[in-house]
């Protein structure tokens, strides 16, 4: 099961995820993210605080956003999930952070530039 909570904060769209972002559920997040992109949103913050599992099917959604020239940041607290992004050399390109404050800074900095 994948739990998704979506809300608009001033500088970004916040997605809080819980459960499993796998081949069976990635399309649920993909649909919501695609809607936000179509609505003109360009800043996406994903909070993985309650996410237990991710596979490449989930990771592709974030890469797709970057290719659409959106700004992405992801808060990852689970060591196992963080290690998967490390293996894929995706920590830097996807702005993977260990806490929410660091992730939010990505958007406040991008607004200043």
């Amino acid at each position, binding site marked *: 099961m994948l739990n998704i909570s979506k809300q608009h904060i001033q500088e970004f769209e916040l997605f809080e995820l819980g459960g499993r972002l796998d081949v*069976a559920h990635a399309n649920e997040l993909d649909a919501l993210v695609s809607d936000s992109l179509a609505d003109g949103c360009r800043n996406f913050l994903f909070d993985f605080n309650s996410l237990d599992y991710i596979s490449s099917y989930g990771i592709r959604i974030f890469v797709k956003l970057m290719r659409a020239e959106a700004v992405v940041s992801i808060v990852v607290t689970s060591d196992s999930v963080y290690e998967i992004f490390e293996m894929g050399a995706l920590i830097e*390109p996807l702005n993977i952070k260990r806490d929410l404050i660091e992730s939010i800074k990505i958007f406040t900095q991008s607004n200043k530039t």
Partner: protein
Amino acid sequence: MAQKYFINLRIILLTNNYFFRMGNPHTNKYQFKLSHDVKDIDQIEHAIEDIRKLWDVSDKSLFQLNLVLEELISNTMFYGFDGNKNGIIEVDLSFDGQHIHVSIHDDALPFDPTAAVDDSTETELDERKIGGLGIMLTQRISEDMQYEYHENKNKLRFKINTQPNVEHK
């Protein structure tokens, strides 16, 4: 202990075919079968939850086992059967106290996951890298991956080290 064994001996009826998941805590072996249908992919999650109860393996190792099985089996389901409506994927797992030994047999089209993919650590997100991301993660997590195509079957074997910082005796 006997009760624990029988709880994990399950017969599952799926789409008019019988598939099974079977675990035995005495031998540290676990087997399950899936059809070619992607709807069967949740069998992997059920297997991981069974193993969590049977074997003394960390959450991190179970995460890695789950990921490797999902990447390999979903790839076979999506691309391997090409109209064959009776495809079968058989998974055999065993645990020796340090390594989880994995064996996957299927009657899909030949596919060798040990073949080289873009393994660079560059930060560019090019198409080739993302397309092969699942297989690349699989290669990085697994050890001693061996593939052969024999008697019209893909046969893949590898192991996952559950204690990478401990020297095996």
